[in-house]
């Protein structure tokens, strides 16, 4: 495992938060995903050794929790809320708008590698529906105009990198 020194430092620190090392499974997975972008195969035995548990104990956790991904995704992760309050206010249309803007489908990485769009379940911001989480940031009342504006911003950033 090739992890950044600050990730390794955080890993050692977070293990001390619990009387049982195994409790650090989720925190370690989060730290590794933040560092690498996804959970690579070799992370599973690595975490198991670190926490003195079996690889299967880590594997069953990775496969249970929707936020952990086992392959790379686009540079930006666009998560559109699918659940009732957002759907009532047009969440499905918002999602379709992002798909059109980036010419991709939910669950796929766009051809240029810039984005992955996913539906997620209720993000606990139903009063400002429809909502979208882009990486760590919540965007509220994302109607078609706002979806376009957010997409343009992402495209502009992508262009400036090239």
């Amino acid at each position, binding site marked *: 495992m090739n992890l950044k020194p600050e990730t390794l430092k955080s890993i050692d620190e977070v293990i001390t938060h619990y009387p049982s090392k195994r409790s650090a499974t989720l925190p370690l997975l989060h730290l590794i995903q933040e560092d690498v972008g996804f959970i690579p195969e070799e992370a599973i035995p690595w975490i198991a050794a670190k926490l003195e548990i079996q690889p299967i104990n880590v594997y069953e956790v990775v496969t*249970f929790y929707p936020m952990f991904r086992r392959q790379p995704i686009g540079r930006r992760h666009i998560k559109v809320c*699918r659940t*009732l*309050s957002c759907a*009532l206010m047009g969440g499905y249309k918002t999602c379709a708008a992002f798909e059109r803007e980036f010419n991709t489908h939910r669950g796929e990485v766009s051809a240029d590698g810039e984005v992955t769009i996913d539906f997620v*379940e*209720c993000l*606990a911001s139903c009063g400002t529906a429809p909502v979208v989480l882009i990486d760590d940031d919540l965007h509220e009342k994302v109607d078609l105009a706002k979806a376009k504006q957010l997409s343009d911003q992402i495209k502009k950033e992508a262009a400036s990198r090239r």
Partner: protein
Amino acid sequence: MPSERRIIFQHIDEPGYTNDLACYQRHGGYEILKKAVLRKPEELIDEVKKSGLRGRGGAGFPCGVKWGLVDRKSGKPIYLIVNADESEPGTFKDRYIMHQDPHQLIEGTMISCFANNVKQAYIYIRGEMPHGARILEKAIAEARAANFVGKNILGTSYSCDIFVHRGAGAYICGEETGLIESLEGKRANPRIKPPYFPAVLGLYQCPTIVNNVETLCHVKYIAEHGGEAYARIGTPGNTGTRIFCVSGHVQRPGYYEFEAGKITMGQLLNEVCGGPLPGRKFKAVIPGGSSAKIMRFGERYKGKRKVGAEMVDYDWGVEDVPMDFDSLAMIGTMGGSGGVIVMDDTVNMVEALANINAFYSHESCGQCTPCREGALWMKKITTRMVHGAARTEDAALLKSVADQIPGRTICAFGEACSWPTQSFIAKFGDEFKNYAETKKTAKPAETALI
């Protein structure tokens, strides 16, 4: 019309109010903890018992009773877990407390820990709130540096730390025993009760208190004003304030804090939230998070209820129902987490149920066959009705699947996932039976729900 009474959301969205320690202390922050640690812990538990505070996570279980069940003789450490998983669809109150007023939660947590002789607390926050987790971590670090958290708090012999633990996108982590499994580093498969009551065999098989974010903020208020004063807010049996999270088809969705039971559904939706969208009419409302049974505008609820010492008749429409745990339970639904989801006459109930069923099918942990398979089939049937062929007999089929789940599962998710289908079919059965015909004639819905 009663006016809002903000005790928990006092500073939410207040201009100039920031989430750092200095701002919190300028507003009197941690003064209540300073007084609390000089009292006897049992006194604080008594105040909470007297207050009648009921848990705000969904079940409305009396907080003082919960604390009273904690096994204090086992010799094992007692843990407190703050349930900050907030994932019941329609619920969005804990988010604002954690992002905008994190020290209120930390002070409430520390008072609760001191009252229960807890030496280690964890805040289990849902994975989709990374900023929330960072804000809490920073706030805890500030509180630790000021000696409100950590070793020898405020110069006393009492020590207690708090750590933040992030979930990773699974709704079932909100269920307290699933949460405990998750905090132990496992899949969030809920545990069977008995024997695994958290108060006795919780985290690491030690006595554990699990309370919702908002509940612990109420504890802070109770420690300040006393249990009796708190019990005078709201109505008997439903004390304190409730935060209603209104979403869906109203003019002014959002959060509103009122004394429990002092406002009716009609006042909340028509006066506070400005009524239906222009040209529309209310059709249905889910009063306490998506698991709560739906209410249909136009239906009547009749029976006898206790007012003081007397039994009186009631005959209510949806608009007349007081917004408190007991009244909503009396008419066959629940106050739950306070998430009020409103649907107007543009919504087809088959499509709305298909949306809800997709949620539950995705979120079942999969341990119990009735839940895993039932939730999946309810989703498959309602999705097929919308996107494929709908049949008249689907209504009965859906009901039969739903009826086979509750009471046969390890956790209350079994009830949570079957109540929507049961109540939608009971109240909008004709809409389900006629859906095939509707699809032939009606133009497709403008807003897809599935």
